[in-house]
C-alpha cells in the first residue's frame, strides 16, 4: 500500500476586509491526500481558490481552519520563524514566471537553496551535475538568466526546486509562460522527475499540462468538486477525459 505524503483535511480560508465588514470564502472545505511518488494536477477556474490552496501548501499563507500534514508534520503548527527553513528543507517550487535571480548565473540560481541550507562546498558540484544533465541544462550553467530561453529558465527553476530533494514539488502554472515546444519538453521533464520518485503537485489551467499527471483534482468554489485518475489511459485519452470533466464542471453551476 502506498504511503500518503500529504494530507489536507477540512481546509478553510476566509479573507476578511480590514474593517471586518466583508468576508470572502476562498476555501470552503478542501479534503484530499497525495501519495508518495504521485503526480497530481489541480485544475480550476480563476477564483476557484487554487492559488490560495497553493499558498497554504507552500506555507506562504495560513489557513483559517483545518490542517495540512506533510509527511507527518502539521504545517499549521510550524512557527513563523521556522517557516523559511521548513520551506527550504521540505518543499520545492516552480513558478510561472521562473523567479530566477538576475544577479546569479544559472548555476548559482540552482545552488542557492543548498547554500542557504549551508551544504558544504565540496558537495555542491556532486549534487548539481546529475540534476543538470538530467534536465539538459549542463551547458548553460555559466550563463545568466537573461541569456537563455524561457524553457531553459524553467528547467533551471525546476532544477533549483528539486536539488534539495524536497518531499513535495509544488508547481504553479509551470508552463504558463512557455511556448508550445518548451511546454512539451517541460512536461516531459516533469514526468521524468516524477518517474525518479519525486512527488509533484501542480496547479494549472492547461489541460495539456494536467494530462501528463497521474491524477487531476478539480476545484470549484473552494471545494474539491471532482477527481480523475489516469488509470491505464495514455496522455491523449486522459486529455479527452479531462476536457469532458471540465465541460461538466462549467455546465453545472
Amino acid at each position: 500500500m502506498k504511503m500518503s505524503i500529504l494530507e489536507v483535511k477540512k481546509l478553510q480560508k476566509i479573507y476578511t476586509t480590514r474593517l471586518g465588514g466583508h468576508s470572502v470564502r476562498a476555501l470552503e472545505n478542501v479534503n484530499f491526500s497525495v501519495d508518495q511518488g504521485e503526480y497530481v494536477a489541480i485544475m480550476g477556474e480563476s477564483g476557484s481558490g487554487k492559488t490560495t490552496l497553493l499558498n497554504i501548501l507552500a506555507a506562504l499563507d495560513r489557513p483559517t481552519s483545518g490542517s495540512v500534514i506533510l509527511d507527518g508534520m502539521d504545517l499549521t503548527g510550524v512557527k513563523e520563524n521556522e517557516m523559511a527553513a521548513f520551506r527550504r528543507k521540505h518543499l520545492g517550487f516552480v513558478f510561472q514566471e521562473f523567479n530566477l535571480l538576475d544577479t546569479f548565473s544559472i548555476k548559482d540560481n540552482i545552488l542557492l537553496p543548498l547554500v542557504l541550507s549551508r551544504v558544504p562546498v565540496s558537495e555542491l558540484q556532486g549534487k548539481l551535475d546529475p540534476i543538470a544533465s538530467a534536465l539538459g541544462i549542463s551547458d548553460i550553467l555559466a550563463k545568466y538568466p537573461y541569456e537563455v530561453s524561457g524553457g531553459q529558465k524553467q528547467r533551471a527553476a525546476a532544477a533549483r526546486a528539486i536539488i534539495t530533494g524536497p518531499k513535495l514539488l509544488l508547481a504553479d502554472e509551470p508552463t504558463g509562460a512557455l511556448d508550445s515546444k518548451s511546454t512539451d519538453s517541460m512536461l516531459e521533464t516533469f514526468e521524468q522527475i516524477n518517474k525518479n520518485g519525486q512527488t509533484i503537485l501542480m496547479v494549472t489551467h492547461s489541460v495539456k499540462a494536467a494530462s501528463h499527471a497521474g491524477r487531476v483534482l478539480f476545484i470549484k468554489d473552494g471545494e474539491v468538486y471532482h477527481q480523475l485518475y489516469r488509470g491505464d489511459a495514455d496522455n491523449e485519452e486522459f486529455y479527452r477525459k479531462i476536457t469532458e470533466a471540465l465541460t461538466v464542471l462549467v455546465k453545472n453551476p
Partner: protein
Amino acid sequence: MIKFYTKTALNGLKKNLKLYVPQIISTAVMFAIMYIMYSLCYEEALKHSRGGDYIGIFMILGVVVISILSLVIIFYANNFLMKQRKREYGLYHVLGLEKKHIINIMLVENIITHTVSILLGTALGILFYRLASLVIFKLYQLEVADNINILSVRALIYTLVIFVIIYALTYIFNCVSLVRLKTTELLLSASYGEKEPKIKWIVFILGLAFLGAGYYIALTIEKPMEALGFFFVAVICVIFGTYFLFTAGSIFILKMLKSKKSYYYKPEHMISVSGMLYRMKQNAAGLASIAILATGVLIMLATTVTLYRGIDEDIENKFPHDMYFNIREWSDNNRVAHDFTEEEGLAALKEACDSLGLKVTNFGKQESMEIPFMLKGDDLITSDSDDGGISFNYNFVSRKDVKSITFISTDTYAILTGESLSLKNDEMAFAKLSRDNWAPEKVNLLGLELKNVHTIKKNPLSSSVAEVGNCFLFVVNGDVFEHIDSELTKKYVEELYLVKSQFFADIEGEEEKKMELFQTIRKNLNEYGEAKGTSCNIYNPAMRWEQQEEEIILNGSLLFLGILLSMVCFFATALIIYYKQLTEGYDDRNRFQIMEKVGLSKPEIKKTIRSQILTVFFIPLAVAGIHTLVAYSILSKIMSLLTTTNIFLLCTGIVFVIFSLIYVAIYSLTARTYYRIVS
C-alpha cells in the same frame, strides 16, 4: 492645449513627488547659498568695516565654485529624474502624443518645479541671510551692525540669471535626448537582465596608477612650496583614481571573492557578493562622487577651522612682541651701514609713546644673517667659482648640496628664547629649520672651524623666517658673528646676503592708543625714509594687533566660505544617497520577493539587505577617511606656510567625527525609504 499640458504635468509631478521633493529642496538650498554669497558682496554694513574688501573677493570666488557645483548637481538630479520617467513619457508617446507634445509637458513640469525651488530658495536665502551675516560679524570679531540688508535685489537677479541658465541647459539637454530616443527604448523597463560586469583591466590599472601617483605625491613631498604647487596635481590624480577604482577595482575585488568557492558559497556571502557586483556596476560613479564630495568637505572644513582656531597661537608664535621694525641695512661698497642705532630707535619710540600716554615695557634688537653655502665634505663654501664672487645659480630650494644658513648671535638667541648659551670661538649650536636631515658634527666656513656642541630642538626664530628650502640655524658667540658679518660683507655685493636687523618692543596701554601709536610710527618712519631717499617699506614695520586682525579677516573669510561650500557639497551628497536608496529599493524589491519564495526568512533577508546597504554606503565614507588621512600629510606642509599652529590634526579628527555622525544620520533617514520600498 496649455490646460492639457498643465494638467498632465501636474499629474506627473504628483505621482513622482518622492523624486521631485528632494531635488526641489536641494536646488533651493543651493539657490539660497548663492543668493547669500552675492548679497554679502553688496552688504553696505560690511563695506566700511574691516574685512569689507576681503568679503567681496571671497564671496565672488564662492559664487564661481557654487555655480559649477550647482551645474553638476542639477544635471545629476535631472538625469536621474529623466531615467525614472522615461517609461512614463514612452507611454504618452504610445498613447498618441507626439514628441513635441511630450517636450511641452516636460517644459511645464520643469517650469513648475523650478519656480517652486526658486521661490523656496529665495525664501530660505532671505531668511538665512541674517544668520549668515551674523556669523560673518562673529567670525570677523566685529560688533553686529544694525543696518544689515533685508533683501538685495541685485543679488537676487544675479542668482536668478545663473540658475535660469542652468535650468535652460538641462531642459535643452532633455529635449535632445528625448528626440533622439526611439519609442521602444522609452518603454523599455529600466534595467532587466544586465550582463555581469567584466573587469575592465585598463581602467583598473589606470585607477591604481592615478591613485598611486596622487598618494605618492601627497605622502612624499617634503617642501611646503612644492606641496602647494603639486597639491592640485595630487587632487586631480586622486579624483580620477577614485572614479576608476570604484568602477573597476570594486568589480575586481568582488570577482576575486566570487572565484573563491569556499568563501562564495555561504548564504551570507553569496547573496551579498553577487548583489554588490550588480550594484557596483550601476553605482560606482555615484559612490565615487560621494567619496570625493565627502573628502572635499572634510578637507575644506579641517583646514579652514584650523586656520581660524589657530589664529591666537599663530600670532603668539610669529609675533611674540607687540611691534617690530627693521633697521635699514644695505651692502654698499662692501660696507654695511646702519640707519639708526638702538639708542636712537628707543628714544624716538619713547617720545611717540609719551605723547599718547603709553609705556615702553620692553625694547631690544635681534640680528640675523641668512646666506646660502655649498656643502663639500665638511666645508661650506660661499662660491664654486674662482674669483670669490658667488656664481652658482641659486635655485637653492631644490639643490640638495646647497644649505641656506641663518646665523644669530648668542645674545639674539637669549632675547628670542630667554635661554642663555655660552659658546667658545670654535663652537656653535645648531638647529634644523626645514625637513632636510643634514646634521653636521663640524663645519669649516669663512676660515673658521666650528664644532656642533648643541642641537636646538625648537626653532627659536619665528617660523615665517624659513620653512622653505634646506634651511638651518647656526648660533655663534658675538665675536664669531662679527667675524662672519665682516667676511660676508667683503665678499658680497648682491642681495644674496640677507641681513635682518630688527627692533622689537612691547607697549603697555590702551588698545586704541596703541593703534594710534602705530600710525604715528609708520608716518615717522615714512618721513625719515623719504628724507633719506627711500620709502617706509624698507623698515617693514609690523604690529601684532594688525597682523592678528589681518588673520582674523582672512581666515574668517576662508572659514565662512568653507562652511558654505561644505553645506552645498553636503546637500549634494545627501541627494545622491537618497536617489541611490530609491533606485536600489525598486531594484531589490523583486529580488527579495524571489528569495523569500526560495526559502529565505524575512529576518535573514533583512540582515542581508542591511549588510549590503551598509557596505555600499559606508565604503565612500571609509574612502573619504583614507583620502583625508593621506591629504593630511601634504596639507600639513602647505598649512605650515599659512600658520604655525599645531591643532591641524586635532581639527581634522574632530571634523571627521562630526561629519561621520551627520553622514550616519543622512544614511538612516534615507534608508527608511529603502526599507519601505523593499518590504
